[in-house]
């Protein structure tokens, strides 16, 4: 394909998608029925819903009028399986296979909306017809998730119809590499994997670094327990990541990219591979892209189950077929990365931000967010909250807006205790700080981190000592063993926390725990070890009284810890 053919294809593809903007297209279709096929909805049974829809449509001879499309994740996982009917955008939730048959007969044949499957506003009690009216979506701003749940991820045409592969020809056809990097720098985009390093600066360093060939890597090793943003993007809009990587390839002069995706995400791997194949077939990847003289190709590397591989140097080792152990930085991957060559490594969400930044300009992106944290961030909202799922909000949105307005508040009328961000590398932000605007600096000031986007809501029934013990168990389990502070130090921390939770605390245990935490934070080799003690540091800072209660009175205020276990039994 060359640019002219791409424009033509975009035109045809847009025509077919007009139905989803509420207009009737010329291809004869009257309805598009979108079924959410994200992993969340798959587990609530969306496959049988889809099959029932297709069967009933066929049975009633509506194939020429109705298209059933399986999309990626739309976000509100607890409402699944989700079915949306266009051109009106009517949103049905918790649909069963029987309901699906009913939707075909009532809505598609008779034109009557099935009232019983509409979402009822918990505030006003009103039935809401379309998804943007639902409180869960109202405060969201979807840039990364712009296509998730709205297009068929297996169709490159639908991606192209929604301005996909518009940025790539613009870059290849008329921008210098420096201008591309300048646009990314201007946008203020920072690494969405958690560390928040300015993306433009990273690209610039890789461009200037001597050495050939150079590489572009996508970090899709989303291992943080409680996070699934990257999976949803890879599943629901894989082309956006590919396009972002190709743009970077041009900017830093790399011809080869790797996408490292964890093996736990089979659907993400499948959809991403399909996207690669389609892009290659369409001349958007491979040799001489769009006849504009640029070569770039991407290959998937499947992870093999090691959390530490989310750390960039460990991940690069893993791609090279070695143990996924980190190494000291500097040199940074931008100078010496994959196969010891200059490498740009960015997270899935970062990549998905690139095409809209190029299309709309860096200034457009920089106008969203706070002074130092620009743009939006996707969070995986879970835990003891009413509405769970994926949400994307402008940075600077407060935790309260996310948890209470979008999340609908704490489940079962319980009291909010804390919000854990950043997974095992982050901290618990106490309920009193809920009006904090979310940005990199504000979360760091509270002893937590932005992290990759996991957001776990914790209610009054959760014991903070037990929560810290859970995270430390994770860290010591996933420690690769290369450096002593992490390998032995986190083990000792875990032992102390276990003693506390069993009522076997020794004198000075809490102080020792905090001391250890500081030492490990300052001396561990990589990010996993350095941030591993954060859950302890943040919970001891804000909930010291709970620790003291466990240590001195051998009591757990929530009853979550098995305090009554005798030491002899506990050792088993």
């Amino acid at each position, binding site marked *: 394909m060359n640019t002219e053919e791409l424009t033509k294809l975009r035109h045809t593809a847009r025509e077919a998608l007009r139905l989803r903007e509420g207009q009737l297209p010329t291809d004869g279709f009257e309805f598009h029925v979108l079924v959410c096929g994200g992993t969340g909805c798959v587990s609530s049974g969306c496959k049988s819903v889809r099959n029932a829809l297709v069967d009933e449509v066929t049975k009633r001879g509506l194939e020429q009028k109705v298209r059933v499309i399986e999309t990626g994740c739309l976000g509100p996982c607890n409402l699944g399986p989700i079915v949306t009917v266009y051109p009106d955008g009517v949103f049905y939730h918790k649909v069963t296979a029987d309901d699906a048959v009913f939707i075909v007969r009532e809505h598609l044949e008779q034109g009557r909306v099935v009232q019983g499957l509409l979402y009822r506003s918990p505030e006003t009690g009103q039935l809401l017809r379309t998804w943007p009216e639902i409180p869960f979506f109202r405060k969201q701003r979807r840039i990364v998730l712009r296509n998730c749940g709205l297009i068929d991820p297996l169709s490159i045409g639908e991606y192209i119809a929604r301005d996909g592969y518009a940025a790539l020809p613009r870059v290849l056809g008329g921008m210098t590499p420096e201008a591309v990097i300048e646009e990314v720098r201007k946008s203020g985009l920072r690494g969405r994997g958690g560390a928040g390093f300015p993306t433009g600066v990273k690209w610039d360093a890789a461009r200037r670094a001597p050495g050939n060939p150079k590489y572009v890597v996508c970090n899709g090793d989303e291992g943080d327990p409680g*996070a699934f943003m990257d999976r949803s993007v890879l599943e629901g809009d894989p082309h956006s990541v590919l396009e972002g990587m190709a743009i970077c390839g041009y900017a830093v002069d790399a011809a080869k990219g790797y996408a490292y995706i964890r093996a736990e995400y089979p659907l993400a791997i499948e959809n991403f591979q399909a996207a690669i194949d389609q892009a290659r077939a369409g001349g958007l990847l491979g040799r001489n892209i769009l006849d504009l003289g640029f070569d770039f190709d991407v290959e998937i590397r499947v992870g093999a189950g090691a959390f530490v591989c989310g750390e960039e140097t460990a991940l690069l080792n893993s791609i090279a077929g070695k143990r996924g152990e980190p190494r000291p930085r500097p040199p940074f991957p931008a100078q010496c990365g994959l196969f010891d060559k200059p490498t740009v490594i960015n997270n899935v969400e970062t990549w998905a931000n690139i095409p809209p930044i190029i299309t709309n300009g860096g200034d457009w992106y920089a106008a969203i967010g706070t002074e130092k944290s620009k743009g939006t961030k996707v969070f995986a909202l879970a835990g003891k909250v009413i509405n769970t799922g994926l949400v994307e909000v402008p940075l600077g949105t407060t935790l309260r807006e996310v948890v209470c307005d979008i999340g609908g508040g704490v489940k079962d009328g319980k009291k909010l205790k804390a919000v854990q961000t950043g997974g095992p590398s982050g901290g618990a932000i106490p309920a009193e700080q809920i009006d904090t605007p979310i940005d990199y600096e504000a979360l760091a000031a509270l002893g937590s981190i932005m992290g990759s986007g996991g957001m776990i809501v914790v209610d009054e029934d959760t014991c903070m000592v037990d929560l810290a013990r859970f995270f430390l168990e994770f860290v010591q389990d996933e420690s690769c063993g290369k450096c002593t502070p992490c390998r032995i130090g986190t083990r000792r921390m875990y032992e102390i926390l276990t003693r506390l939770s069993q009522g076997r605390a020794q004198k000075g245990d809490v102080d020792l725990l905090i001391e250890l935490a500081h030492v490990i934070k300052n001396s561990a080799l990589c990010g996993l070890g350095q941030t591993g003690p954060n859950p302890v540091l943040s919970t001891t800072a804000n909930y010291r009284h709970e620790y003291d209660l466990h240590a001195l009175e051998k009591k757990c205020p929530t009853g979550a810890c098995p305090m009554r276990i005798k030491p002899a039994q506990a050792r088993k």
Partner: protein
Amino acid sequence: MAQLVDDYDRESLTCFIQTHRNQPASLIQVLSHIQQTAGYLPKPVLVEVSEKLGLSLTEVYSTASFYAFFTFRPRGRHNIVLCNGTACYVKGTGAVRATLERELGIRAGDTTADRRFSLDVVRCLGCCALAPVVMVDKDVYAGVDPAKVPEILNKYQ
């Protein structure tokens, strides 16, 4: 899906390994393929991998033992994966685990004597909104409570 232990086709594995001759960077892909087709990493096959890819057996073992997905013992016909991520933990994965271990008569990480099931506990399957989550082969079960366990197990023979 993992097959019975002694079923694996040694010849086709040899062919596959051959395609990665002298490519040490392909080690993890090769190991993944063997794990998927044979259900584990049999020692004679690892010896072959080391010879063909140009690595020492120690290097092969060092990499293989690092990653949770590789096992040196045969797996069951059906692989049960219990999620112990934060959201699942907060929502009570512990009771589900206890029931699974009791029903199967094995501990996490083991395989039943009839090789019907293997049981693993992992950190996060990324379905946090639907916690607690159990995955059997490629099927995902959401909001699992201990009472649902026998019904789920019965589906797999």
